[in-house]
Structure formats: C-alpha cells, structure tokens
C-alpha cells in the first residue's frame, strides 16, 4: 500500500492541513502529494513545468480534487485528465464544499469517479475522508496502466 500515492489538489492551506489530518486520523498512511491549483496539478501529472522530469509512469492511486481553484478549476483539470490516455482512468474524487446540483452534474459529466461534499463537522469529514482512502486505496482495484488495455 506504501507505493500508492494520493494527489490532493487543494488551494486552501487550512483545508489542506485539515484533510491531511483527517487522513492520518483515519490511519491512511499513504504518501500524500499536495498541489495548490489546477495548473500545478496538471504539471505534476504530465511531468511538465515545475515537475519536469518526474517519472510519469508513477501515477497517483487517487486524486482528491477541489473544484474552486485559481487559474484552472477542478472541472477543467478533470476534463484534461480524461482526454489524455495516460490519465484517462485515474480515480478522481471531487472533494468540495458545494453540493449544488449543477456542480454535481458537471462533475459526473466530466468523468469523476466519486463526488463527496466536505461536511462541516470535522468528525464527519474525517470519517468521509477515511472511508474514501479505505475504499479507493484498499478495496478498489486500480485501473491498468496506459495503453495496455486488452482489446477494449
């Protein structure tokens, strides 16, 4: 399980800290890479910009994506991921404050795997994040890597 990385895309440092705390609380010990906006997230995933030279064969096992971010927002990031072969099947969980119907619908439309609204009560938030980690990193089988799909 140690090899599985969680990519947390979150612009708010407080949220970032609380999310990491919640993961720890739920005993999710996987490496968490934090990027602070959409641009950075894409650079990380495609090994460009600040992350040039990163081994892009190592992809995160779970991306926790905030929606409202400066520069490129979450939905845009999601759209780009789904367009690229290398990131097409990466599990993406949208983790956001909004449960606006519009946002939920757009999220699924763009191809997210799960949509979770962050509860205000930290205990509930902690439980939710813990559950997510358990599910996506432990129970869920990760998709095969790019290009090796047998005749689909």
């Amino acid at each position, binding site marked *: 399980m140690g090899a599985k990385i969680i990519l947390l895309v979150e612009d*708010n440092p*407080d*949220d970032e800290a*609380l999310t990491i*705390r919640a993961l720890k609380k739920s005993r999710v010990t996987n490496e968490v890479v934090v990027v602070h906006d959409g641009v950075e997230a894409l650079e990380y995933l495609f090994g460009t910009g600040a992350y040039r030279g990163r081994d892009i064969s190592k992809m995160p096992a779970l991306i926790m994506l905030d*929606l*409202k971010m400066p520069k490129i927002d979450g939905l845009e990031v999601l759209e780009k991921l789904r367009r690229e072969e290398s990131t097409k099947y990466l599990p993406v969980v949208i983790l*956001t*404050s*909004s*449960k*606006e*119907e*519009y*946002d939920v619908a757009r999220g699924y439309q763009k191809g997210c795997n799960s949509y979770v609204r*962050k*509860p*205000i*009560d*930290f*205990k509930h*938030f902690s439980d939710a994040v813990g559950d997510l980690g358990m599910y996506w990193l432990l129970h869920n089988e990760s998709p095969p890597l790019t290009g090796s799909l047998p005749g689909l």
Partner: protein
Amino acid sequence: MPDLPHTQSSITHAFHHLSKFASVVVAAIGLLVLLGWAFNIAVLKTVLPGLVSMKANTALCLLLSGVALRLDHILLKRGWVIVMTIGAVVATIGALTLTQYLFIFDTGVDQLLADDSERSDQTSFPGRSPFITAVGLLLIGLAFVCLNIRRGFLLSQAFSLTTAGLFLVALLGYLFGVRAPYATGVSNPVAVHTTLAFLLLSAGMLFRYPDRGLMSVVGGEGMGAHMARQLFLPAICLPVLLGWITMLGQHAGVYEMEFGHTLYASATLAMLAAGVWWSARQLDRIDERRIQAVESDAVHKRTEAMFRALLETAPEAVIIVNRESRIVLVNARTERLFGYGRKELVGKDVDCLLPERFHGSHVLHYTIDNGPATRPAGSDEIYGLRKDDSEFPIEISSSPHQTQDGVLAMSAIRDITERKQAADAVRASAERFRLMVEGVTDYAILVLDPEGYIVSWNAGAQRLKGYRAEEILGYHFSRFYPAEDVQCGKPEHELKVATVEGRVEDEGWRVRQDGSRFWANVIITAIREKGELRGFSKVTRDLTERKQAEEDIKESNAKLKVINQELEAFSYSVAHDLQSPLRIINGYCQALAEDCVEKLDPQAQDHLKRIQIATVRMGQLIDNLLKLSNVSRTTIRKSQVDLGALAQGLTDELKQAEPAREAEFQIQDGMFAEADPQLIRIVLANLLENAWKFTSRQPRARIEVGLLKSETETAYFVRDNGEGFDMAYVDNLFAPFQRLHSTRDFPGSGIGLATVQRIILRHGGRVWAEAEKGKGASVYFSLPPKSPV
C-alpha cells in the same frame, strides 16, 4: 228587332203628357164651340156645313171638364173639391138631359146658354145634347167625382173607359156611314168634334195616373204592358180599316155581301193569326232575353260578391272616391285602420282621412284631376288621420276607373308604421355607426376606393396622422408609407393581397403629416358588394408605445438575465465560500480539543463544542437558504407524480434513520398530482420531516398523508399527532426564519415551510395549516388540476 222596353219613367211621362195635352185640347174645343154659339159662327158649331152641331151645353161641359183635368194636374190632390164640384155639375147636366129624354119633358136646360131654334140639323129637340152625349156627360162627370175619392179611382177609370167605348162606337158609325151608333131614336145625332173631344177627354182621364189602376197594364214596364202598347193601335185600326175596305167593295158592287163577310172574316182571321204569331214571337224573344238577363245578373252578382269578398279581405284599406271627392265605398280594413264605421265614411269628403296639411293635396283623388296615371306610391311622406285624431304614416296608390256612374278613383292605403319604424331604426343605426366611426380617436379608420384613393377620414385618422379630412380626401394612401416602402411597392402589394385574400395585416413604420414616424398596426379589408370590389377599409393603430414597451421589456429581460447570472454566481460563491470557513473553524476546534486535551479544562472543551455546533447549524442554514433561492430560480417542469409512492419512499428513509422510534404511517393510495417531481419531493420531504420531528416526543407517533376533494380543488395533507402549535401564530408559520418552537425543543432553520409555500405558490396552488397545541398539526396544500393543453 223590337224596341227595348221603355223605362217606367219615360212611358209614364209620355202618358202624363198625353193626359195634359188632352185636357188643354178638350177645353179649347169647348171654348171655341161656345164662342161659335155666342157669335153664331156656324163653322165653329158644326165644323163642316150640313153636319150636326155641338150643343152649347156640351161645349160648356167639355170646357169645364178640360179645365178640371188641367187643374187636377196642377193642384194634384189639393184641388179635389174643385174637380169634384165640376164633375158634379157636368154629371148633373148630363143627368138632366137624360131625364128629359126618358120622361119626355123639357126642363129648359137645353137652350139655357144659347138659342138653337134656327138649328141646321133638323133634330127633334133644339139645343139639347144628343142622348149619347148626355150619357157621356153623366159618365165623365161621375169619373171626375170619383177621381180623388179613396177607392174611387178604379170606378173613375171604369166610367172613363165606358165613355171612351161609347164614343168609339159613335166614331165607327161616322166612318161606316151607319147612323144608329151616333143617332139613337128620338135623340139628336152626336157631332163629329163632340165624338173626338170625348174620346180625347176619356183618354186624358184614363192616363191621368198612367201607373195606377187599369192603365198600369199599358203604362207599366212589364212585358204585358209592352205587348199591350205594341198591339193597341193595330188592334183598333186594322179591323176598322178592313171593315171599311170590305164595305167599299160591296158598295162599289165588286162582290156580294156574303163574299164581303167572308172576305172580312178571312182578313180578320189572317190578321189575328199574324197578331198571335207576332205576339208569340215577341214573348219568346223577350223571355229569352229575360233568361239571359237573369243569367247575366247571376254572373254579375257572383262577380260582385267575389269582388266584395276580395275587397273585404284585402290587406290594404281600399277607398273608392267619386269626382266630387266623396267616399263611395270602403272596405273592412279601412274601418279598422281609420277607426270609422263605413256608414260614417260613405258620402263624406275623403279629406277627413288626412291631416289638415294634406287637405286639397289630392293624394286620395290625385289621379282624377291628373289623368289616368297611377300615382307612384311612397313619393312623399303621407300620413293618415284616425277618428281619434292620431296620425300614422301611410302609403297610397290610386288609379282612376271609368264606370257607368262616372270616373271613380280607387285608392289602396297601407299602414307603413312598422316599415317606417324599421327604416328609421336602420337609418338611426347607420347614423349612429357613422358617428361612432367618426368619433373613434384611438384608431384611424378610413375608406379607400378600389384604386387606393382616400374617400373617408375619421377623428382618429386626424389624430394619428395629422391631416384634416379636407387636406387628405382624394389623395392616395401610399403617402402614409415611408419612401423606401413606396419604392418597393408595398402599398400596392398590400391592396393586392387584400383583394385576393380579403384582408391584410401589417405592422411597420408609417409617416405622419409632419414627417415623423410611428409604429403602426394596419388592417386593410376589402369591401365587396355582391362580389364586386367597392374599395377597402383601413384601420390603423399607433403601436409606437407598445413597440417601445416591448423594447423596454426586452431590455429589462436582458438586464434581468445578467442579474440572474450574477445571483447564480453569488449563490455558487455562498455555497463554496461561506461553507469553507465554517468547516475550517469546526476542524480547528476539533484539532484544538484533541491536541490540547490536557491544557483545556472541561469548560474550555464545552466552549469548543458549542462553536462546532454553531458552525454545523450555520452550514445547515446556508444550505436551506440556497434551496429556497433555488426553488425560485428553477423552472417548473410538470408531470404526473404519484405522491403516495413519493411519500412512502420518504417515510422509509425517516424510519431507517431512526429505527428505534415507534411510529405509524398511513398513506392514502392513488394520490396523483400534476407537479414538478423534484420540487414536490422537497415539499413532501419538508412536511414529513416536520411531522417526524414534532412527533419525536410522542410514545406512539402517527403520521397520515392523504387528500381531500372539494368541488373546486383537491387538497393534500400531512397530519401528525405531535406537538402542534398555537393557531394564533399560524400567520407566521410560512414566513422564512420564523419558528413557533424553540431550537432547544425542536431544532430547525425556519426555512422548510417557507420553501414549501414558495413551491406550492409557484405551482399555482395554496398552502395552509390547522393545529392545536399539544394535539398535532395538519398542513394542507392544493395543486391546480392539469391545465387543458
């Protein structure tokens, strides 16, 4: 061809004149003979020398008789005393003379008047009237006496007739040269002029009253009288003539007496046979004519009856007027129309049926004076006048007719009150309509001729386009169109479309007199009469304001869209940005409580807990507010919703959330409603959550979902046996953020029912509640039935 029977008046007249003539002639003869005696003029006494003279007494009696007859003519019955006295005198003279003959003595009456001693005729008694004359005098005198006595007239005629017969025999005696008839025995013979005078006198007496007594047979108008007149003269003259001729033959020795008689008998026979044949033929002819007359009379009567019946049933009043403007005949309709009885009208001047202003205008006898032209009906307004002095409009048509009684005018009169009222009503309505069209100021209403030239113009047209009627009438309507429209032939095109399709509607810019433009709605309608194009009506409305308003609305809609977009962005921000800090506060409170668990005393821990609870509540509030604003923003998409199934699903969720609670749900089957499924779900969820919440303290909760149907609406309700509320505050129930319970007792945001109300109102329904504190509450909502699309 025999003459037509004379009318009674002409025959009677002729006989009457004969009677008058006889009286005068007889009196004249008597007077002349008297003069002859007085002055001894032989020719007056005897007429021819050697003949017997008329005695003075006879002459006097004849004079008296002639005078008496004439007086009777003149004085009629009033002179009866004189006539009777004269008659008595004459009769007395006759009687005295007769007495002398009978008893052979001389009373001296014979030569009382004149001396007859030198008499020329050798008679036995000088101056004495002959015997026959005496009888004649007596008879004629009695005839005068009886003439005017009641029931004596026939007797008088009998006397006159006997006298006539007596002297006719005397006359025949003269004619055949036989003495006996005029000279009986010892008596003097009767003079010729005496004989003639008596014949005349008795005729005069007989015809005194030709229509009465015996003479009525001759003087009457009947067939017998006619025959009698025809046969009278031949019956008297022919036998006399035959006898005389026969006698002449015998005297001349042409034949023997026996042969003479035979001849006479044969001739008489032939004559009688001829007379009988002629009479029979006459009678036949007359009878034939009479039958014809009777038949034609019957036809005439039938025709007349039919004419009368037609006249009486005629729907028009028929009045026949003679040349003197007097009414001759009217029908029943006339009586009804004018209120007079026909007896009142006949003989009256026809002007009585007209008001005074029409008197003498000859409307009812117009044609008599103006030749045989039928007066055209309705050429003027004419009124009739009823008996009660009321007037009514009439129509008259008259025509003259030449009849046996002269020219008559027949007028047919029709009461045209109703027709006139109808015509007046039509006229008034047309006038009202014209005034209305002229007075319309909101619409320009004008009429164009088939080529598009303006022929009428109303106040609205002046207001809209600026032209006064006199400035624009006769111009082409294309001058209301902008130059670019005229160039591309739009006015003509519109007329063409209106001609073909009957109507054309257009909206566009038009030009006023001052050159300014206005946005107009124009409807051009073809006016057709019996299929032929008469022109066009053109109704124009100024829609500049409406167009402005439409553009204003477009503009504000665009603005509203921007505002809505901003609001959406705002809501979005609220959802994200307000929730985020709350979560962070809550998270760090938790972190603080956990990380500094030794440093914080229990009270500090409690403070942190309260902060966390407040953040959660605020999050809920924000969520509910967003929901409420979403309800207002989303568009409603109605479909049929099974409310029962929906409620069932929601209650299942509630029970699952708190499986320990003892609760009974009762949901009616078959509750279908036309609603937006998403929104109606929010409604039911809110109501059921409330019911669930407010029954939380009940040991046995009971929640009912059902419907009530009234004539006007269908209401759905959610009823519980929970906490209820005080109806005094029911008005606050549906207002946002208003709560009837403390958060301590029953948590909540105060937005749920506000949301419910907003959703129901947006559906066109209404929502209300009933409750009793401590005994439960019912919340009702109604939805309008499916609109018939």
